[in-house]
């Protein structure tokens, strides 16, 4: 009998953080412009202590101003999607639940686009305008998950197959809505559609949005983490959890709102990147087991690592053309989804 202790959890997280750091450094090095590891380390240090003027060369500026923000964006987006996936799997009691598969990401994308349209019609100050898209994405995600939840119910219980079908239909319907909205928008192009449908990290985001993303992630993750022990029991069913002392309605609303925030934030800055929320929790469960006190932080690190690697591949495999990062995650994620589905049916 070796239950999880706080010390062991912190140690494992430290190891994952170290791996994440190494991945970030490697991703910084990858690209058309070659940089030395020494130069990279020196520039990173300068950025950390705020001495951006001391950065040696133009190449260094490329790395710090172009690659680093994109990697940080991938870090937060990956962590958000993976934690949202882990949460949805526990909340819906379905190991195949994922923001993308269930159409929640598409819902967030529709919310973002609608917010962009509203924003362009009304005149807001730039600070307020920057917040409208993520807020629209959150509302879109929250409405979609509520809709999928009700579509997936049969005789008062969530039915796994019905839920997935409901999610897939919702996703395809919302994709059509996205195409419709984009084509009716002036100045839109195919690139925009790819962004919202497949996910893309190449669009630079304003600093204020990056801060919002970071703060939003910390708050939403913290909220979900307070229910980590309850989620372990919720896996055995709501009634069972209630009999073991879990305040089921409270846990449900906290996780539902926080996971919608995470999905909304991620989608509003990167579009609908698929399968991260499905793939990462499964891999982490294989390594660390299904205790959510460990699984949630492990998924956050795993999601960050996964998306940074996927995006580094997307930048370099077909260079000088960028692939959308969602194409890379889908190539890995879709076969895994089929595998998990078949194993579950077997």
């Amino acid at each position, binding site marked *: 009998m070796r*239950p999880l202790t706080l010390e062991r959890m912190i140690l494992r997280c430290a190891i994952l953080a170290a791996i994440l750091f190494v991945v970030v450094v490697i991703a910084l090095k990858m690209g058309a412009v070659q940089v030395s590891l020494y130069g990279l380390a020196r520039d990173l240090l300068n950025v950390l202590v705020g001495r951006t003027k001391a950065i040696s060369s133009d190449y260094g500026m490329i790395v710090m101003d172009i690659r680093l923000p994109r990697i940080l964006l991938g870090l937060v987006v990956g962590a958000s999607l993976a934690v949202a996936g882990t949460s949805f799997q526990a909340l819906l009691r379905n190991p195949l639940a994922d923001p993308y598969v269930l159409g929640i990401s598409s819902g967030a994308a529709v919310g973002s686009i609608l917010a962009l349209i509203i924003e362009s019609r009304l005149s807001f100050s730039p600070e307020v305008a920057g917040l409208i898209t993520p807020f629209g994405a959150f509302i879109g995600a929250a409405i979609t998950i509520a809709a999928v939840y009700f579509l997936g119910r049969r005789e008062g219980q969530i039915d796994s197959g019905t839920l997935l079908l409901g999610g897939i239909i919702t996703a395809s319907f919302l994709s059509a809505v996205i195409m419709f909205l984009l084509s009716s928008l002036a100045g839109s192009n195919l690139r925009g559609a790819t962004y919202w449908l497949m996910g893309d990290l190449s669009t630079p985001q304003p600093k204020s949005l990056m801060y919002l993303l970071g703060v939003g992630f910390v708050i939403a993750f913290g909220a979900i983490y307070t229910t980590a*022990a309850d989620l372990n029991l919720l896996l055995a069913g709501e009634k069972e959890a209630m*009999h073991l002392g879990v305040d089921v309605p409270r846990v449900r609303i906290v996780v539902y709102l926080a996971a919608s925030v995470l999905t909304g934030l991620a989608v509003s800055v990167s579009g609908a990147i698929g399968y991260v929320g499905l793939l990462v929790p499964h891999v982490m469960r294989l390594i660390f087991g299904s*205790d959510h006190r460990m699984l949630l932080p492990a998924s956050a690190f795993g999601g960050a690592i996964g998306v940074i690697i996927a995006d580094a591949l997307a930048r370099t495999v077909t260079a000088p053309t960028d692939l959308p990062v969602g194409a890379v995650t889908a190539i890995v994620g879709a076969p895994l989804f089929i595998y998990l589905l078949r194993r579950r049916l077997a």
Partner: protein
Amino acid sequence: MNTQIHSPLAHAAADSDQQRSNSDVRLSVEQVSYAYSSNPSQAPLFTLEALSFQAKPGEIVAILGPNACGKSTLLKLISGALEPLSGRIFLNGFATSALSPKTRAQRVALVQQESPLLFPSRAWEFVLQGRHPYGRALRFETADDIIIAKNAMAQVNASHLSDRWMDKISGGEKQRIVLARALAQQPLLLLLDEPTLHLDIGAQVDLLVNLRRLAAENRYTVVVVTHELNLAGEFADQVVLLQKGKCLRVGPPATVYQRDLLEQVFQAPLSVELTASGRPRVTLLSND
């Protein structure tokens, strides 16, 4: 700190025939009724008529009756999963409906028919879940929690299963682990919904012998829903006999097990005889 599953009370096993005094009653079901309807404007599909019974620490109460008689509904009412339409249920003098989920889980443990798992877990992880109502915040288990979980497994002779996966053990072994989790909750009241359903006869007897011993040692009040007339007759101190949502009789098995009554309830020809221990034994007679 006391890390025993339960410290037995100073006075040893109270005889079930002993005069009931109010202070001695642990579970008191008072005029409890329930009605179920899918649509509130329509007549209820099922009603449980008002019924009452009481149970003391260390007593086993069996709820008996044919299918759809309201056995599981009554158990859900006692567990607090359902709110009674009328009447109240008291546990040590407190109305169970007024307890928070956490407090209720510290006092009432329920062993359900099936405990499905979404992801496999090891037996010890499952048993430790029983300590959840005692934890704070992130609920990292304390050394006491681990000792209590180990004791719980030892009490149901399942220590050797500790490291096995829950989906890789037999039905009888799983049932013992589920029971161990309930014991780890250190409840006053132990509720079991058809615990013998998927067990072979040996495992059934084994479970009830365990229950009898645990009720006596730990002073649990045990309420068990079952179809097994003979097991209930052998092990229960009290029987609550239900038919179509109506409580027909409450009392010791020897007084409830009347041939005419059982034949009418179960719609089958039976014979009832008393064994040397004074326990009734029911035999199903063939129709021809």
